[in-house]
């Protein structure tokens, strides 16, 4: 199958991404996959590493675009490429450090923290779909209340604010119910 961009140009794709359109993100993912992964593969990376780096880079790009913190001064591909370069450089540095030293200290795992994180993750899973989306759009995409209202079909920003407040409270209550305050606030 050959990828086609459905006639959308870069500006249109970028505008849709800024509004949190996941279809546009998927389109972008397909469009630059070979170009971006090649960067890693031709610099001593594996296909899996290349894919991971590209996905991470695209998520950084998506997060910046949806939060309204990105003003593009170059082509999208140039911008994403530079993120890939930085991420891969960091990964190579990390691998180099790991191969040289500090392996034992890095492996030390805080099991208590890990347990708490698992509990939080479970509590997030217990939320209904809309609550999850509201919180994700608010804390990860950092969307405005207007964008959240538009995306989820709320009547206005006040409805979105109330929904977000209720969902966050519900999550906090779930988390706190499972662990005493002392467990978390030590």
């Amino acid at each position, binding site marked *: 199958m050959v990828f086609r961009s459905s006639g959308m140009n870069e500006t249109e794709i970028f505008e849709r991404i800024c509004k949190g359109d996941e279809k546009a993100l998927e389109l972008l993912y397909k469009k630059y996959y070979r170009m971006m992964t090649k960067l890693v593969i031709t610099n001593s990376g594996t296909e899996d590493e290349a894919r991971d780096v590209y996905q991470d880079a695209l*998520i950084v790009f998506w997060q910046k675009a949806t939060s309204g913190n990105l003003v593009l001064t170059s082509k999208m591909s140039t911008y994403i490429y530079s993120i890939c370069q930085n991420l891969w450089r960091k990964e190579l540095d990390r691998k180099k450090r790991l191969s040289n030293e500090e392996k034992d200290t890095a492996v030390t795992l805080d099991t208590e923290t890990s347990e708490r994180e698992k509990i*939080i993750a479970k509590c997030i899973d217990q939320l209904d779909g809309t609550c999850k989306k509201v919180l*994700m759009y608010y804390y990860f995409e950092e969307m405005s209340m207007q964008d959240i209202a538009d995306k989820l079909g709320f009547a206005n920003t006040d409805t979105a604010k109330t929904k977000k407040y209720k969902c966050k409270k519900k999550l906090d209550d779930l988390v706190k119910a499972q662990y005493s305050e002392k467990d978390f*606030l030590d």
Partner: protein
Amino acid sequence: MASEKDLELLDQYVGNRLTAQDRAAFEKKLASDTSLQNEFNLQQRVVEKIREARIMELKTMFNSVPASALEPTGTSLVTQMSLGVAIVAVIGAGIYFYASNEDTVTDQSVTKQEEVATQLPQIVEPQEEETSAPESPATGGPESLETKSVVPPAENKKNDVEIPQASNDTKANEEAKGPAPLDVFDPSKETESPAATPETKTSESPKLSKSSIVVETDNSNKKYNFHYQFKNGKLHLYGTFEKNLYEIMEFFSGNKRTVFLYYKDSYYLLNEENETIKPLAPINDPSLLKKLKDYRGAR
């Protein structure tokens, strides 16, 4: 205990929604309020997990994109170059084999039968003009159409010369064969010629084509587990012969035919004298073995 207003500010802080100025002010307050710090630790973890969950969602979306949708629209330069090299190699090989077999006139021909031959394209008949070349790895895949369009039909035909014609000579020999006494054909006559260059070597090499012998294997006979028998014009092989691993080699010298079996790196002489079941005994004569190997290798 943190106030409601502090908690609201904290939420905006962990949600990256404060201005730089408000942020700095909140951090100042945070540094001096232990109760607020505790709440901050909790909220930071919760928000971090929300973000991680979202990242996982997005990655799942990426990973669900089929690999075929990630293919580039055009053929890369490297692929094009590889294709070019493959095409030149195919054409070159075709010309070489065509030229070297064109004028070959020998009174002997060697026919071979391989089980695998059934998977290959039809043996080329001399009168056939249009035959398709076997699809090599270089020409397989998405670019195969391009390759086929570049290779002229004439070249395709030449490629097939690699599996030479089931010649008329062979047919004539088959018709003429009779219950002749066993006269083992000595392939050394063929290989002893001072054929150093590829041209002269191939011009004197025997023709290879599909054998006329029909082979049947029988692995159910307990008494005969590595035997053979010529019966009713068929060759019966008794034993657990692995499919695709044996070959029948026929050598014709005048009206006489000598048949060999190749199986698992050994060669066996097959005596057609009568219809008795005979054991298969490997040939040990080094010079004969070498010649047989040479013929097998020449296919």
